[in-house]
């Protein structure tokens, strides 16, 4: 109890401006207090990722995520698109390093059957819970029930005023009429012909920090910023001088300083190709240490991903095909304090992800089915289907 009382003071002191403006019935769109300790959080655009973030049900403002990805797939890029699209809809300022302007047109659009599908899935999950209440937490990414309930309350309460995390449709493109925020692209490689002569002296990474710092310093306090750094140090968009340890670590350190300085209005997501910068190297480890949350995506190279879904399984099953594993190495706020409370224990277990058209990247606990279940299921499912449907 002493914890909560003190924390109320703390959160108001760290983000006094946002807190006061929030209470004066002028809520910043896309920001809600964490159910855990009340600090302001924003959505990553991926609901199942929000649920993983140590009980905060969103990315706390003033923190960063580093998402490493193995192989040549671009699941992390999809996460960034959702993060950007969510920010665009909520009217946040978005700063992208190193992508071409055309990236803006690849952002997913709001799914039109938003309400229907969400209510459907909710009732469906409720039905499942009645059948196997012990596994109810599995359906919500492993969160304990009370947290789930809070979220449902939040979402239902927010439904009348604003939505915290929209649902997107990958096959659609973001409609310009939905866009309220601004997106700015910054070059990740120096182009001597294009840039003004004064800029040539500093590296593109330093220039990026300067630009963001300038924008942050000259924006109203209620404006929320999102920084996107896709494929950090990938040779296709970064010059070799940027991948010197001092260059990139100074960049991340400066970014961390900015996050702390503007802890009420800035979040950052960085993706890193782990095939080029393996986690066993000191440089990658330092990059991870400098970010608040670190996740690792391991796509599975199984042929089953490309195989057509088995006809015996229902549609929802085929969408749930596991496309890879997700490992969490650290979480914002949680691990800074020392880590390890039962509330968020689910985040440490094995997690899997799958990409679906309507739900985006779905992250849920990974468990191997009992041996032989597959074959039995195939035989049984058809016969048992009739009895399951009442």
């Amino acid at each position, binding site marked *: 109890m002493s914890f909560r009382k003190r924390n109320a003071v703390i959160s108001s002191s760290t983000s006094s401006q946002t807190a006061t403006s929030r209470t004066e019935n002028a809520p910043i769109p896309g920001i809600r207090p964490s159910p855990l300790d009340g600090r302001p959080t924003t959505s990553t655009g991926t609901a199942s990722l929000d649920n993983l973030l140590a009980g905060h049900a969103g990315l706390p403002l003033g923190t960063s995520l580093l998402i490493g990805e193995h192989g040549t797939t671009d699941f992390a890029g999809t996460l960034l698109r959702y993060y950007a699209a969510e920010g665009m809809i909520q009217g946040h300022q978005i700063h992208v390093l190193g992508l071409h302007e055309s990236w803006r047109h690849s952002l997913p659009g709001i799914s039109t059957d938003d309400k229907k599908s969400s209510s459907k899935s909710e009732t469906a999950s409720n039905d499942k819970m009645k059948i196997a209440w012990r596994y109810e937490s599995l359906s919500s990414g492993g969160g304990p029930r009370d947290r789930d309930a809070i979220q449902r309350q939040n979402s239902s309460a927010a439904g009348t005023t604003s939505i915290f995390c929209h649902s997107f449709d990958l096959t659609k493109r973001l409609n310009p009429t939905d866009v309220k925020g601004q997106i700015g692209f910054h070059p990740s490689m120096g182009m001597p012909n294009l840039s003004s002569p004064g800029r040539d002296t500093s590296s593109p990474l330093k220039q990026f920090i300067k630009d963001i710092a300038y924008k942050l310093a000259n924006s109203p306090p209620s404006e929320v910023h999102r920084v996107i750094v896709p494929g950090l140090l990938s040779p296709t968009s970064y010059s070799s001088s940027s991948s010197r340890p001092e260059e990139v670590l100074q960049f991340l350190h400066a970014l961390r300083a900015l996050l702390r300085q503007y*802890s009420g209005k800035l979040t950052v997501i960085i993706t890193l190709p782990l095939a080029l910068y393996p986690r066993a190297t000191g440089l990658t480890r330092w990059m991870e240490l400098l970010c608040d949350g670190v996740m690792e995506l391991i796509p599975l190279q199984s042929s089953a991903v490309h195989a057509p879904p088995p006809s015996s399984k229902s549609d929802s099953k085929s969408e749930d095909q596991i496309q890879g594993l997700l490992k969490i190495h650290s979480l914002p706020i949680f691990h800074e304090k020392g880590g390890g409370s039962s509330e968020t224990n689910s985040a440490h277990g094995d997690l899997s992800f799958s990409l679906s058209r309507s739900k985006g990247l779905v992250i849920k606990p990974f468990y191997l089915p009992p041996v032989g279940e597959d074959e039995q299921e195939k035989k049984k499912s058809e016969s048992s289907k009739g009895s399951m449907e009442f």
Partner: protein
Amino acid sequence: MASRIPPLLDTYLGLPPETSLVLLSGILGSTTNWLVFRYLYSLLSAPSNPVAKEDGVNVVLVSFLRDYTFWKDGAGKLGIDLDVSTRKGKFVFVDGLSGLFYAPQSHAPIRTPGGAPGGRSLSSATLQHLRKGLEDAVTQVQHSASPEQRTVLIVDQPDLLLAASGDGISSQGLRETLLDIREKVHSSIVTLSADEPLISSQATSLEKDHAALGISLAHDAHLIISLRMLDTGAARDVSGVLRVTPGGGIDDSMEVVEERELLYFVAGDGGVRVFERGQ
């Protein structure tokens, strides 16, 4: 009051012996922050026992990865108000995060909502600057205190300086600078990252320098407390493993540190429980 310091760690978290160095090492996912908070608490809290011969300790905290707000919040939960300690002249915070690699433009004044009152900050990543910044901070805290008060220096992750400054700073140079400042204080506490890729692989100069710094500090240290994740994977009620080892810097005058391994658990409210395996 006593419950804020886990009983099993009571012997380690007190004032370290004179001229000694305590090395705290952590890895990604098991940071040393909660240990530093406990040190701050045990050093800065007023002695409850009037018979105790030391009347409080001054602390200089240099942090390269965390800002003042973070330390203030965490210490506040333990009942230590760093603002008050700063005003009393018992505590000086040196900010190594905000301005180290990014100089704010002159027309955009740096906004520090939770800036330390009278706090200092490092604005350039050179050893000369570090030495001067720390010496000034130590002089400031010693100036405002009675001469018999001791000063403890806490350096949070100086390894960042080594990693992020390239060839500008060598591990030898950083260690010597730390040694020079250690001469001026009663004892020092240093936190480091000791992740496996940083200590054991030693393929690039970054890794070599880091390993050299870590190992030489471990040899200088009187006591090493290293934190790591549980080897067997995550558990519901265990955050990680805490290992206490005597360092290489023990001389005969110091009491012997017993080697032991304990488990720790950091609860959601910041409370810490430390226990033996199987308890």
